[in-house]
């Protein structure tokens, strides 16, 4: 250092980080033992898991009975869960009363559904454009397959739909129809046009103010009074409409939140480039607003999917309804745990997949802003 305080420093060579700040040692330190309290909680949790997991595992798998003719037979052979109630009735749980000879149609519709979802969920599949055409046609294909009434496919009444088939029909239709409707309602609520805005606000507030069960009751009973006498309006269709309207009102508010988060500069930039209202919405505003809204949208979808079980109230046999019917059978009485665990597992798989997909989507759409 000279007298003026002017200093020049040598360059320091790179060194290895200390062992405690890399790899699994670091992970353990940061996640499980970061403080005395966290270390104590880690140990307590480990002990509780030790107490809980082995017996549960034994009940569900090791000591379980998978096939039996009745509850008595189950309990005579094993200590654990009696999955026989599920395995003997698995067709009921999946198809409800869908005629046994026609069940291949439901299976085919399900496989095609998965195929139709691929290009919608993932944008890097080869030949996506043509594939999407198939996805757009899928509702029609599914309708013909499931309900039939054309040569070669005898008609199946929708009253015979049940189980997971019914859940998927209501859930998938509700989700795919309510998203576009929700977007339109959200845009309408922010519209400059007074009438449009008032209609959208009125609709959203009315639907949100009424429980879904009430809407389902309206669908099953009251609607018939309002329609001209003699019109038979399929109950399943009425339920689909109500579920869609219900969900779209919630989605509209979620999406409106996303729209409000977009800075005004984005609208101005789109306008100043000469993009019309619909083009600027579609190309600039909605892609960003929907991305922000993904957690809320998926939240609504999951809620809708689980709310489909409410159709039990108006006499439709969803998985819970089938479970209840099964449990009232004298041969199987008292096995409610097994039935509800099985139904819960189905819902968990569906909802957890949606949740994981939404996380994947968020990561993919992250562009560093």
């Amino acid at each position, binding site marked *: 250092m000279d007298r003026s305080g002017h200093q020049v420093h040598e360059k320091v060579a790179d060194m290895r980080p200390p062992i405690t700040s890399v790899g699994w040692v670091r992970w353990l330190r940061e996640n499980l033992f970061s403080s005395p309290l966290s270390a104590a909680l880690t140990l307590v949790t480990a002990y509780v898991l030790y107490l809980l997991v082995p017996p549960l595992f034994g009940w569900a798998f090791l000591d379980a009975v998978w096939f039996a003719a009745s509850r008595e037979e189950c309990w005579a052979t094993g200590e654990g869960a009696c999955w026989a109630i599920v395995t003997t009735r698995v067709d009921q749980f999946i198809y409800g009363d869908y005629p046994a000879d026609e069940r291949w149609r439901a299976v085919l519709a399900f496989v095609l559904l998965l195929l139709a979802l691929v290009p919608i969920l993932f944008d890097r599949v080869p030949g996506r454009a043509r594939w999407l055409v198939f996805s757009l046609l899928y509702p029609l294909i599914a309708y013909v397959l499931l309900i039939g009434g054309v040569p070669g496919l005898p008609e199946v009444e929708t009253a015979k739909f049940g189980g997971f088939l019914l859940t998927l029909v209501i859930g998938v239709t509700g989700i795919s129809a309510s998203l576009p409707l929700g977007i339109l309602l959200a845009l309408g609520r922010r519209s400059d046009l007074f009438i449009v805005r008032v209609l959208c606000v009125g609709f959203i507030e009315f639907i949100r103010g009424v429980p879904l069960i009430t809407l389902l009751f309206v669908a099953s009973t009251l609607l018939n009074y309002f329609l001209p006498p003699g019109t038979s309006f399929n109950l399943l269709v009425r339920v689909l409409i109500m579920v869609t309207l219900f969900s779209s009102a919630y989605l509209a508010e979620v999406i409106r939140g996303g729209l409000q988060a977009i800075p005004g*500069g984005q609208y*101005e*930039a789109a306008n100043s480039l000469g*993009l019309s209202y619909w083009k600027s919405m579609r190309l600039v505003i909605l892609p*960003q607003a929907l991305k922000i809204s993904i957690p809320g949208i998926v939240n609504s979808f999951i809620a809708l999917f689980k709310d489909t079980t409410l159709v039990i109230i108006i006499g439709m046999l969803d998985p819970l309804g089938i479970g209840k019917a099964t449990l009232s059978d004298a041969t199987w009485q008292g096995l409610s745990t097994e039935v509800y665990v099985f139904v819960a597992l189905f819902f968990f798989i569906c909802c957890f997949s949606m949740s994981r997909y939404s996380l994947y989507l968020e990561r993919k759409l992250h*562009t560093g802003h």
Partner: protein
Amino acid sequence: MAETDDKPKRTRSRPGAGAARKPAKPAAGRAPAKRAADGRTGSSPARASAGSAPAGTVPATGGGARAPAPASDEIAIEISGMHKWFGDFHVLKDINLTVYRGERIVICGPSGSGKSTVIRCINRLEEHQRGHVIVDGIELTDNLKRIDQVRREVGMVFQHFNLFPHLTVLENCTLAPIWVRRLPKAEAEAIAMRYLERVKIPEQAQKYPGQLSGGQQQRVAIARSLCMEPRIMLFDEPTSALDPEMIKEVLDVMVDLAESGMTMLCVTHEMGFARQVANRVIFMDGGQIIEQAPPAQFFENPKSERTRLFLSQILH
């Protein structure tokens, strides 16, 4: 460099545009008498004074290292008797302004003086309540079709860039050409790359705006506007949100654009830029145009007390 040379769709004749594109030649092709006889002396005193000056003295009025390119006598923008209110607040009062094709105008003034609002009225991001705004021969009214027509021809650059964060730089630049001008994707991308080269960041084309520095983002924003091949460019404080070291790279692009003969209106506090390229500097305060003059006169010999005060505060 002149982007106007390869526009296949432009068929309108542009008198004087040839001269406007050659900044080195002073006064060629000008018609001062015509302009002085224009009748709107109140709205453009600078025009009147320039017209009365002897031909060939343009460098003197320019005052900078480079002489401002002479403008044509074709009117690009005509604002007359424009008033605007935000609620009860009278934000613009009797604005009269005529901008000729190829002219570069710098608007300055204290914050809240309405300078941004004036240029935002030119592409109808704000609507005026009284008076007339005629851009490229099209009067701005509630007619959405006309508004979109004007917006296609008027580019705008914002203080906060307003790039679309979900699109890459290249997609930002091709969006409007593809969806508004209906160009095929390949052609739009070729145009976009040409302008990205012009603002000197072709290598960033595949990045997202969030990955660029402020100066780079603003240059992309300029390129995005240019991709629509506008006849008029509006700049709303383009360097105000930038770190000092990035201001120059943006100004360089704007100077380059000015020298190509683009009609430009810039709201800015960069007085060096005003001296270098402006034909006219306009000073606004309290929603009114207080003074307008060629940069040399404006900076050396401002007429109004308010202008003098403002200049003493921003020029150190």
